[in-house]
């Protein structure tokens, strides 16, 4: 009997080619689920591991870049400063596929300023926030995304307004903003693929329960809370550029977003009405959710046309880092002429 050939993707790579080191995170940590979804999305999407560059800050979440695609370069920077490193890398080599993983402390506490400015520059990258409302690595202090009224493991209550990463990103004019849940691979995998296809910063605010420090009663980032309060906006299908649509759906129940590279994200409405190309609508749906204690998930906003950093800088397609003396220095004539001006 013939052995079934291993399944491979468009690049001829198997899913194992997208694996990383064994995780050192806690068993059951939401971050580990996200890692699995990332592996699946990268595999399905046929991402070239050699073009991938994994970026992160500091935290349990930021460690996660070690746990997928071992064959890709990675930069685990300093706490909260992934955006700056990513911006520099994007400028140096616009052929890189920058894939960032950060935490809520990393992004919304220490890194908030950089995060906002990254969005403003629309640096071409995927930016996953593994959002658990606490500092996992330093043992459970509240982060800036902890919900007001949410209870710490030791009983103290967060009295500060939450920073809603998705809402903030929309308000700042980010070009791609989605929210998801580590437990919802069916939603997260197409969102990651859409993020990869998007040109510009694609923010994925993924609620990712910390089983060790923030999965108890009273936490609004626990598995249980999410199971009960996750309001999924739409069913998602990612359709690569090459593929044709297969099934037709009833009028009005679905919309499609065409992404930068020609691929499409198909959204099938689930109850609530939401057009992800309408910025104000995104603010509205988030505001409504916030007031009702709901965690609204799905693609909140996308603007596939926004120019990214490298386009604005008018960088050539060839990576800057590959240019040599010829392309970079003045000619002898230019050099001599310039000095005549002084």
């Amino acid at each position, binding site marked *: 009997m013939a052995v079934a050939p291993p399944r491979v993707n468009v690049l001829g790579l198997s899913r194992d080619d997208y694996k990383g080191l064994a995780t050192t995170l806690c068993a059951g940590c939401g971050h580990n689920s996200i890692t699995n979804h990332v592996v699946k999305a990268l595999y399905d999407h046929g991402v070239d591991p*050699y073009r991938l560059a994994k970026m992160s800050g500091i935290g349990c979440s930021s460690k996660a870049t070690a746990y997928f695609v071992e064959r890709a370069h*990675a930069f685990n920077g300093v706490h909260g*400063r992934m955006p700056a490193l990513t911006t520099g890398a994007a*400028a140096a080599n616009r052929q890189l596929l920058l894939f960032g993983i950060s935490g809520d402390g990393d992004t919304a506490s220490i890194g908030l300023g950089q995060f906002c*400015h990254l969005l403003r*520059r629309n640096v071409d990258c995927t930016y996953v926030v593994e959002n658990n409302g606490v500092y996992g690595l330093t043992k459970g202090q509240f982060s800036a995304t902890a919900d007001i009224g949410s209870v710490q493991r030791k009983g103290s209550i967060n009295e500060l307004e939450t920073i809603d990463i998705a809402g903030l990103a929309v308000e700042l004019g980010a070009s791609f903003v989605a929210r998801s849940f580590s437990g919802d691979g069916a939603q997260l995998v197409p969102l990651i693929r859409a993020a990869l296809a998007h040109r510009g910063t694609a923010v994925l605010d993924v609620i990712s329960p910390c089983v060790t420090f923030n999965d108890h009663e009273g936490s609004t980032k626990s598995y249980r809370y999410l199971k009960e309060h996750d309001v999924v906006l739409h069913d998602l299908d990612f359709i690569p550029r090459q593929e044709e649509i297969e099934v037709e759906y009833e009028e009005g129940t679905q919309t499609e977003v065409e992404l930068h590279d020609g691929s499409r994200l198909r959204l099938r409405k689930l109850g609530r009405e939401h057009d992800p190309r309408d910025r104000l609508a995104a603010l509205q749906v988030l505001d409504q959710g916030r007031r009702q204690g709901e965690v609204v998930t799905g693609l909140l906003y996308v603007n596939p046309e926004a120019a990214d950093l490298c386009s604005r800088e*008018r960088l050539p397609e060839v990576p800057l880092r590959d*240019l040599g003396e010829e392309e*970079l220095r003045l000619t002898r004539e230019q050099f001599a002429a310039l000095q005549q001006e*002084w």
Partner: protein
Amino acid sequence: MVASTVNGSGSQSANLVLTRAVFEMGIPVAPKNLFPSNIEGLPTWFHLRANSAGYRAGRRQADLMVALNRATFAADVARLGPEAVLVYEEAFGPAPLVDGAPGHVYGLPFARLARETVPNPDLRKYLVNMIYVGVVAEILGIPEEALERALAHQFRTKPKAVAANRDAIHLGADYFRNHVERSDALRLEPLRATGGQRLLEGNQAAALGAIMGGCTVLAWYPITPSSSLAEYLIGFADRYRGDPESGARRMATIQAEDELAAAGMVLGAGWAGARAMTTTSGPGISLMAEFIGLGYYAEVPGVFVDVQRVGPSTGLPTRTMQGDLEFAYSLSHGDTRHPVLLPGTVGECFEFLQAAFDLADRLQTPVFVLSDLDLGMNLWMTDPLPYPERPFDRGKVLNKADLDRLEKFERYRDVDGDGITWRTLPGTPHPLAAYFTRGSGHDEAARYTESDAAYTRVVDRLARKLETGRGMLPAPELQEAGSQVGIIAFGSSHHAVVEARDLLAAEGLTTDYLRLRALPSAAAVGEFVSRHDRVHVVEQNRDGQLWRILQLELGPELAGRLRSVRHYDGLPLFAEDVVAGIRAQEPARRKEPLRAVAGGSS
């Protein structure tokens, strides 16, 4: 000459025309601009030194002053000696002479002349300054052709402006000639001492150095006195890096949200393989501390230019100092040390920027270039800059083809024994290429570890790497003639030292001189010190930072020979300061003291 004006009043172009005109007479010039941290309305002084000897430092005492700022009038006049010439706005009233000084006083109706001849008040603001150019030209005897060439140069991009400015100059010259009875005998004689020279700011030269050094990513945040470096660089990129066909520009110039982010962008780009830099001043260096530590430990190249100003904190943003030396040299917590280049001339600003990119790539670490406001923002005479003859040295980078030949690649394995390991760039399509970069503990294979042994091996190698680097740095420049007394200086202090050595020699004290051009210091420094009984370390900071560093690098035996000469009031270093500082620490040689030097407060 000193022109005392109000900032925002457009005196800048008048001063440049004057500078250029003297230069065009073949006389070496050294202009210095003392301006306030303000946009409009506060005092500003322009110092122009013109001297046949070609000294480039300023002087505390002026022979000629143009006083057009009422607020500082009395203080300005008080700084003048008995031989000096004072030209001032007569509307200020009689000049408050001190013991009959200055000896030659000419009050002129600058404002009235401007009012009468320039109806447009916006224009008038600018032209009034050209009137004093005319007056000074008349006093000093600057020939018409020199002025004409200076005007043509100054307004090369808007030649229409020449006529109005020329008229204003003539107005001043004519008025002076016709209405003023001269008592002085001040005069400039044409020379032929500027042939082939250029007038250039350090920041401009550094920007061109960055371009010629292959910089492709600039990330910066505006801060005086470094902003102009970035702005020159952007200008060059726009002009020379554009691709007329595609419209693309072969350089990214990102204005970051702050210096912390700028440092991160540099490291991100350096890691990805580009030649990246930032330029900043003291406060920015403080904000970059954490990232520099990451660059050191994770071994990421990047060029960090610090155009120093007066600290601590915000300090005096528009005054000059060499106060960040110790801080930059071992910036960040933990055990760290970084190569620091110390350009002393405009030519070196150009040269060292290029060198910095090679060094950063070769040593795979953040490299500092420490300039200062005096060097960076003032015009300096310089020989033409040389076209670089060597290709970039990108250091130890393995590409796909290299990896094809190798069985194994470990990012942090010292295969060559020089402390420098090989790296690959992200995006290299080879199964061996990828490694994990981090600022936490790692072993030779770039794996995470908390092992005590691995940690020690890595940081010991980093120390070794810097030792290797020592040999790659610009060597000190020596001027020795067997004296027992030596001088060590660096950066912009050089120019005052050159002059001070002549002054000292005139007093009978000949000195040898070592100009340091980089840290860690070369072996030649210790050798120099060991050949001298006393070596004066001249620098512009309160704490004697280089003196401290050298004590440690030379060891206790030689350290005892070092003397510290410090200047730290924010004004550029004057030769008199150096002379006074050295004389105070040398056994007396002559009976009569040198004429006292006024501690001028400008």
